[in-house]
């Protein structure tokens, strides 16, 4: 298979970052797609947790919402929402949190709340939902977001979920127990925090994307790793599984 879209590449790259056996907190949109793709390919024993309360959900087809009956019906257990956030997310029982973003800044802080002043916003976004606790307490966080200057901004207008804080050094002072955003996966490549400053640094480019394009899609002077790696394109197996998920075909072997 030689043709794939940049969105498909992004979802495949995200799915590859899940390890077999990982406990993964799954949100709506691309995270849902990536986590289910991982389960269909290299990580069949990846354990999916949905904030609606389903633990160890084994969806037979891609759920359209995080509260689908199929998730509850196939889960090992279903817990209440307070229990989910207190015992499972807040207490640090999640290996990987997958998050999206409307805006993200160079220190991985995420805005999903408002564009413009809080009291008189030009755009009212959905809000924080479950993300602040996932960003704080999941052992690692993978952000999946398309890269553009509208999204990748110097400084987010509202911190809905903390990455590394306003200067990149605040997680410890905030008492956060997880490692924060260890990967930001976009349609152009992959960004990782610099080991000393925590500034997001481009470390991988997807096959066929040039560096100038990635830099032009970033609202700050994007740091680039000395050794820029090329991400291999989707395999036939990955693309086929992804497209079957998007068609919501039932997987009888689940």
């Amino acid at each position, binding site marked *: 298979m030689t043709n794939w879209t940049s969105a498909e590449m992004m979802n495949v790259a995200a799915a590859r970052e899940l390890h077999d056996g990982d406990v993964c907190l799954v949100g709506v949109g691309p995270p849902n797609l990536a986590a289910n793709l991982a389960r269909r390919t290299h990580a069949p024993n990846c354990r999916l947790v949905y904030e609606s309360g389903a633990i160890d959900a084994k969806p037979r087809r891609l759920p*359209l919402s995080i509260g689908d009956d199929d998730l509850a019906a196939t889960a090992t257990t279903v817990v209440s929402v307070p229990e989910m956030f207190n015992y499972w997310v807040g207490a640090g029982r999640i290996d990987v949190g997958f998050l999206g973003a409307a805006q993200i800044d160079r220190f991985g802080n995420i805005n999903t709340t408002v564009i413009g002043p809080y009291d008189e916003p030009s755009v009212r976004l959905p809000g*924080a939902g479950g993300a602040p606790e996932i960003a704080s307490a999941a052992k690692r966080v993978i952000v999946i977001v398309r890269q553009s200057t509208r999204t990748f901004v110097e400084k987010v207008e509202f911190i809905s979920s903390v990455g590394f*804080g306003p200067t990149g050094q605040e997680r410890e002072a905030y*008492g956060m127990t997880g490692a924060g955003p260890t990967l930001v996966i976009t349609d152009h490549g992959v960004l990782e925090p610099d080991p000393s400053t925590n500034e997001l640094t481009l470390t991988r480019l997807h096959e066929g994307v040039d560096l100038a394009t990635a830099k032009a899609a970033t609202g700050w002077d994007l740091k680039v790793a000395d050794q820029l790696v090329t991400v291999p394109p989707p395999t036939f197996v990955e693309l086929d599984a992804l497209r079957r998920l998007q068609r919501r075909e039932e997987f009888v072997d689940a």
Partner: protein
Amino acid sequence: MPDSSPSPIPARAPITSLPAAIAAHVRDGDTVAMEGFTHLIPFAAAHEIARQGRRHLTLVRMTPDLIYDQLIGLGCVDEIVFSYGGNPGVGSLHRLRDAVENHWPHRLGVHEHSHAGLANAYAAGAANLPFGVLRGYRGTDLERQTDIVQTVTCPFTGDELAAVRAVRPDVAIVHAQLADRDGNVMLWGITGVQREAVLAARRAIVTVEEVVDVFPERTGAVILPSWVLSAVCEVPGGAWPSYAAGYTTRDNTFYQQWDAISRDRESFLKWAAENGLPAR
């Protein structure tokens, strides 16, 4: 002299009609929590509130969903307490956005939590505690809403933690699968924050798919005993376009169609008129 008379025997939750229950228990200016996390959302009850013309409501709900988008657009709502205001898997709640961005049909007061914060605020209310505590909000701009979020110091460890003001609704309304003839309620599947909302509230109304003589044995079910409820109403399909596991399926098509219906004021008002929901 202390009152030595025996406690009154708790009244059974009367099984009544939905219009009667709303008329008796939901008043103008009330704080109302209608819960259900994707599953068992009490849409029929919300529509009855709109039909009865309730106004100046403060609505509490983790995920406002279409149910509050509709009540906001109809003009029933002054303030909203919430944690995620989107149409899950689809996009924006356009009536909520229009109210916040353009003050239509009027200005909407916003009190905004994270899911963890609002879940703990309900749990505190259910426990009759003044606040809930969690390791959250640090570093977020949500912390600035000091009317609902504050910082407390743990008396044992000195850790700084978030305190959330307890949510104590005047009325909680939920949908469930079953009630028995005594007015006890059983629900299962994704049970969200419904039990907490009911126990945090002063009055509670439950709509159910079916009233039965005897509950089935059911792993993982939540039981709400009749003596914590004010009214139980048999309303089959009362969660549509949400769902009741074992009875109805989620109408994903309507959730997708809502995006177009709600996107502009005229198509929204046309939808409301066609469905007998008065705008005010």
